[in-house]
């Protein structure tokens, strides 16, 4: 087929994605250099880097960056470690493995707002929640999860959602593991731990890297769970970067400062994306 026709077939996709990438991002860059508050229209003069200064010196900034990183690292560790262990656990056949697998991956399909509300209300409510009931049954004082440990509560919700994703990827990856190799190792008297440590873990190295990078992209941008459950509070205790930017833009109407924050988030994600794209690109054969 002629080159012109192949180009024509690709044109709609390429043009749409190009526009999607360039237009909003250049607007963000432009907004970040002007004074722009929706409450004071018409005063859009150039202010240089002042918006960045405002964003970085915002009382919530340091906390938000710290929270973003704590949330990211905790959820990554929980999902990857548990994910590897659970996928290894269900790799061998046992009664009802299909059902167990379905149960394990189901939380991934729950929408984030429902996820947050189930946990906020039915699990973590200090009076009527399941956790409170368990505490009471054990003779302990019920914990006000969202009030006392807001960030940890969000981490629990997010991990509950993403652990199934890790399991799903690892289970898929384990299916391609060489069974003959495992059997040979078993014949030679290798224990289950040895097989896990020296055959399974190395086999999972690549999938783990991929899961870490993809989860990072999503976890840096956690929003709905915070929006619905803690509202970023108390204070800034569970505010992450995404929520702080939302707060600046749609609650304080400060478009300029929010845009500066948005660029900061883009920068952070790009560092991760750089590695992800390289890893995926290696695997890509055209």
């Amino acid at each position, binding site marked *: 087929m002629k080159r012109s026709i192949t180009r024509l077939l690709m044109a709609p996709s390429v043009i749409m994605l190009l526009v999607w990438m360039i237009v909003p991002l250049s607007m963000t860059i432009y907004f970040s250099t002007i004074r722009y508050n929706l409450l004071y229209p018409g005063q859009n003069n150039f202010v240089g880097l002042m918006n960045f200064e405002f964003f970085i010196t915002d009382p919530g900034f340091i906390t938000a960056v710290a929270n973003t990183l704590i949330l990211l690292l905790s959820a990554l560790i929980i999902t990857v470690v548990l994910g590897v262990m659970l996928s290894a656990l269900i790799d061998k056949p046992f009664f009802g493995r299909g059902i167990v697998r379905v149960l394990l991956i189901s939380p991934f399909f729950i929408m984030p707002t429902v996820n947050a509300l189930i946990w906020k209300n039915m699990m973590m409510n200090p009076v009527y929640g399941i956790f409170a009931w368990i505490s009471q049954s054990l003779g302990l004082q019920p914990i006000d999860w969202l009030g006392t440990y807001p960030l940890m509560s969000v981490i629990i919700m997010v991990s509950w959602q993403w652990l199934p994703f890790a399991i799903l990827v690892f289970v898929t990856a384990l299916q391609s593991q060489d069974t003959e190799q495992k059997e040979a190792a078993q014949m030679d008297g290798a224990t289950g731990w040895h097989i896990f440590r020296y055959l399974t873990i190395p086999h999972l190295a690549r999938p783990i890297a991929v899961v870490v990078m993809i989860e990072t992209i999503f976890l840096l*941008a956690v929003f709905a769970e915070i929006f619905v459950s803690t509202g970023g509070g108390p204070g800034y205790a569970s505010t992450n970067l995404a929520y702080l930017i939302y707060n600046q833009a749609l609650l304080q109407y400060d478009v300029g400062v929010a845009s500066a924050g948005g660029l900061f988030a883009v920068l952070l994600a790009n560092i991760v994306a750089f590695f992800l794209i390289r890893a995926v690109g290696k695997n890509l054969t055209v």
Partner: protein
Amino acid sequence: MTLNQQRKLKTLITGLFAWLVALLLFFPIFWMFITSFKTELQAISVPPSLFFEPTLDNFKVVQDRSDYLLHAMNSVITSFGSTIIALIIAVPAAYSMAFFPGKRTKDILLWMLSTKMLPAVGVLVPIYILFRNNGLLDSRIGLIIIFTLMNLPIIIWMLFSYFKDLPKEILEAARMDGASPWGEVVKVVLPLSVGGIASTGLLSIILCWNEAFWSLNLTASNAAPLTAMIASYSSPEGLFWAKLSAASTLACAPIIVFGWFCQKQLVQGLTFGAVK
């Protein structure tokens, strides 16, 4: 104990442990499901009631309180609409890249993937303002546009990998028989990849259905899909756990079933083919 018995015991313990963990992780979903059939009083009873007379009232009240059907319709229209549009745009692109790759095809694919890496919050402000100035705020069309662009890279990637796996011989045979390029696509490529296109569409629908960031920020009452509608139950105006559960159960059930059916595609799509 013989070796065989030992092995059996080990399988039994592994199995029991796996079941225990699975039930624990599934418990919140189970509990949401159960609670949707309770009265509001039963929903907040301590100790939690497990045996009760199930009622369907919540499902009725949810409709009256928050016009459930409107929001369900919004979810259906935005996720199916954007998926269909994205497929129409993506199929030709994936087809041309898979069957007539050029020098820069790989770069284009990776570039498309990189647009997925842009955090939504980085472009929230301009999109919000563009939408506001063009009357797209709280409209289904606005959400469809966003969803289409959001999923286009994943859809192209998945279709590309399906098309690439099609046996080239069949295409050549069709060409020998004098099929035109267009006939080749309609009579050979599409019928062979119907399964792949369907599961790509299914994945896209799941991602749209559960999308929360743009839904929460760009819609209010008219175009709010279920994700955003359910967020309105977070207000502390009262304890509506049974109704919340009913609304959530209805919103999540179809997607959980969809998800069970396309686990493989999900992995492939979300990892951009890095894990197969």
